[in-house]
């Protein structure tokens, strides 16, 4: 059993909050949910909508086949009624005098007016009707409303009860769902990133606002005291990254977050972290580019950019979590890796992953805090000591050791050098760490293979969600390979899988097929079939299934 509900209205109608609330209700009722928010870069007016996909089994994406539309304005009906299934319903703000195909009229505005509420509360009226239609006990919705609206819950709950009774008098139930009371947690991708980082010892988060990474900053600001976290919003992204490096040099696990444009501003200091081997974790949440692009919509076009970010050559780690659960675990892994190997680590996500909501059960035991290599206190401390694996044990200012970090090429003590032999040796020392990193990654989940058919779809990042859902809808059996670690590239996993495959297609959200080109570079295999999307919207699994049918 699965169904999709769209709620739409103008910016300022509280669509995102209502969508989240509906998601939480179905989560509480024991279902898997996936909530997608679609909004424009404006504060009032325009058209916003949320799609809530509800299912008995895990879902990773949303699609455009709707069972129900909750329309807070007429624009919502106009824009989305073509996506409604023949038996679908439209809850709209009106009376029985108005004839709308498949429409269930509910006097949203007049009920709100009756209790002297404000227009944003209309969604609570609609939710009352929703509860009746699906036979969800009002107590369950009341509990969620109390959690979400806190002090402002009272009027919303009143409206919920009023509209439930109204629906009882006027409509027939459409679907009696079985309530199983779930114990999962509803999280956005950005919240999962934040919690994962905290779990691996994050002490400081620094960011300058930029969609779609901003909600990490919001989350941390809201919870800084209970998480015991320092949270800073400096003057620009250049300050963000330099501040992070100063903090990490002094011994604090630090993370920064931005989107492509902000990361572009950070390039010089990103290279500095490579040179002075200061641990750094950057969350880069992609949005449609180039330039300002389409700020509130999605893309996977920064893969090549982050792979080559920063001038010069230095080792780095690039992780692209593909769903919200993975974002939690992989961010904690990122923090540990940055400190163990003293390299910059990038978490590459996108608007779709950052801002979508799903319910997951977090297993905290799966995360461990891995300690960095610490040097003994000595007067002759060498910050860049040559070692067998290239990793020079860390020391922080405040002790007996004198810690000299440098952006210049340097000797083992961190003193500037221009001697060719020393320069060569230090560059080799830094790249020696790649070997140690690769050995470590061999023990980690760097790729995930779903199924074992000889027909194979390769994908990365949030597109995996639509790919898995699409393959699930198809009759043909197709395997899916999701690549999570993109640098160092897990050739040890990818090459054998590609060798066994017969037909291969690459699915990704960009124009040039960046993953396909990376696979060619790293493995020598040329994947000709590419399904690419660059209209700033995520793949729709139904459409994707059609495209895949043509390939396989």
């Amino acid at each position, binding site marked *: 059993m699965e169904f999709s509900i769209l709620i739409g209205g103008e910016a300022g109608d509280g669509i995102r909050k209502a969508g989240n609330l509906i998601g939480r209700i179905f989560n509480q009722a024991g279902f898997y949910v996936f909530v997608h928010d679609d909004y424009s870069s404006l504060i009032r007016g325009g058209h916003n909508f949320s799609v809530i996909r509800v299912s008995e089994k895990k879902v990773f994406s949303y699609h455009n086949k709707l069972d129900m539309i909750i329309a807070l304005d007429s624009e919502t009906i106009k824009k989305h009624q073509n996506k409604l299934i023949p038996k679908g319903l439209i809850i709209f703000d009106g009376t029985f005098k108005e004839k709308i195909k498949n429409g269930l009229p509910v006097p949203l505005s007049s009920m709100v007016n009756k209790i002297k509420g404000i227009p944003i509360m209309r969604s609570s009226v609609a939710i009352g009707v929703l509860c009746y239609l699906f036979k969800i006990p009002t107590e369950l919705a009341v509990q969620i409303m109390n959690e979400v609206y806190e002090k402002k819950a009272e009027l919303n709950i009143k409206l919920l009860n009023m509209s439930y009774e109204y629906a009882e008098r006027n409509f027939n139930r459409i679907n009696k769902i079985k309530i199983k009371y779930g114990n999962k947690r509803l999280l956005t991708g950005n919240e999962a990133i934040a919690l994962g980082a905290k779990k691996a010892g994050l002490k400081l988060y620094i960011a300058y606002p930029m969609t779609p990474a901003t909600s990490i900053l919001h989350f941390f600001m809201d919870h800084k005291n209970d998480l015991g976290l320092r949270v800073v919003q*400096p003057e620009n992204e*250049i300050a963000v990254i330099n501040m992070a490096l*100063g903090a990490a*040099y002094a011994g604090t696990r630090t993370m920064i977050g931005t989107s492509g444009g902000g990361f572009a501003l950070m390039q*010089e200091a990103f290279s500095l972290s490579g040179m002075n081997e200061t641990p750094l974790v950057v969350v880069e949440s992609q949005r449609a580019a180039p330039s300002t692009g389409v700020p509130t919509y999605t893309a996977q076009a920064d893969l090549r950019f982050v792979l080559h970010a920063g001038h010069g050559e230095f080792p780095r780690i690039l992780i692209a979590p593909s769903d919200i659960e993975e974002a939690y675990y992989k961010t904690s892994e990122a923090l540990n890796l940055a400190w163990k190997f003293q390299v910059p680590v990038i978490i590459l996500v996108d608007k779709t992953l950052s801002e979508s909501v799903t319910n997951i059960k977090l297993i905290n035991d799966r995360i461990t805090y891995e300690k960095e290599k610490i040097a003994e206190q000595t007067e002759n401390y060498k910050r860049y000591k040559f070692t067998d694996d290239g990793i020079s044990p860390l020391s922080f200012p405040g002790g007996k050791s004198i810690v000299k970090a440098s952006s210049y090429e*340097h000797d083992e003590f961190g003193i500037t050098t221009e001697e060719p032999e020393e320069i060569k040796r230090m560059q080799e020392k830094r790249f020696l760490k790649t070997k140690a990193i690769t050995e470590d990654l061999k023990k980690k989940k760097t790729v995930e293979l779903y199924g074992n058919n000889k027909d194979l779809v390769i994908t990365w990042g949030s597109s995996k969600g639509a790919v898995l859902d699409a393959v699930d809808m198809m009759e043909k059996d197709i395997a899916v390979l999701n690549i999570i670690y993109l640098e160092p590239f897990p050739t040890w996993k990818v090459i054998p899988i590609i060798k066994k495959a017969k037909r291969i297609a690459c699915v990704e959200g960009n124009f040039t097929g960046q993953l396909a080109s990376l696979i060619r570079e790293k493995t020598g295999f040329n994947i000709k079939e590419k399904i690419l999307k660059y209209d700033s919207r995520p793949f729709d699994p139904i459409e994707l299934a059609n495209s895949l049918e043509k390939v396989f």
Partner: protein
Amino acid sequence: MNEIDLDTHVQNTWCPGCGNFGILSAFKSTLKELVSSDELKLKNVVISAGIGCHGKILDYVKVNSFYSIHGRVPPTLTGMKLSNPSLEVIGFAGDGDAYAEGISHLIHAAKRNSDIKMIIHNNQVFALTTGQFTPTTPEGFKTKTSPKGSIERPINPLTLMLVSGATFVARGFSGNVEHLKNLFKEAIRHKGFAVVDILQPCITFNNTFQFYKERVYDLNKTEYDKKDFNSALSKANEWGDKIPIGIFYNAEKKTFEESILEGL
């Protein structure tokens, strides 16, 4: 008392007679004296610098250091202070570094009263890149990138820092090491953002030694209230036959790091 050794094995590559020697000497004396008087623990001192002749100072002083990139010293120091508030973080920057490439950081560090100290080697010229104009180059001054004389009017670092909210603003002269040392001491004793702009001759591209020597006078030896913001602003505008050096402004305000760490 044991002699505190701050020397490194590194050979100094500044031009003979460079104003940087005065700054280096005053800084080392400052550290030695503050450590001797138990006001400072050497292990807690971290110095940072941008890129330019001034930056080499990091290789010449045996304390913790972070060689930053051009213009980015203030956020680097703020990060350290957020990480470990017991550190004493001191930044060096050139006039190009602080007032061109990194001017936004300097203004914002002053605005938020971050507990960092900034020492600006202001020689009015880009020296390490062999002589180009900077934001403090006098109008009409000829450099490789202003062959007919600079067409821009210079900024006044002191008024800029005062209106940005700096809680400690001072000016020194690299030719007066004893005076400079006292400024450094007071800057380090100050809780909050401190900036010391240093009038520094560049022996090769802009030798102002004689010019300054004839004009500078110690502001703090006159009737002057360094707690008065308006007096500071007015004195900061004095530039001509007489040039004031000393502490222009010194006020107590809550620091950025105190606010961030509150309740944690």
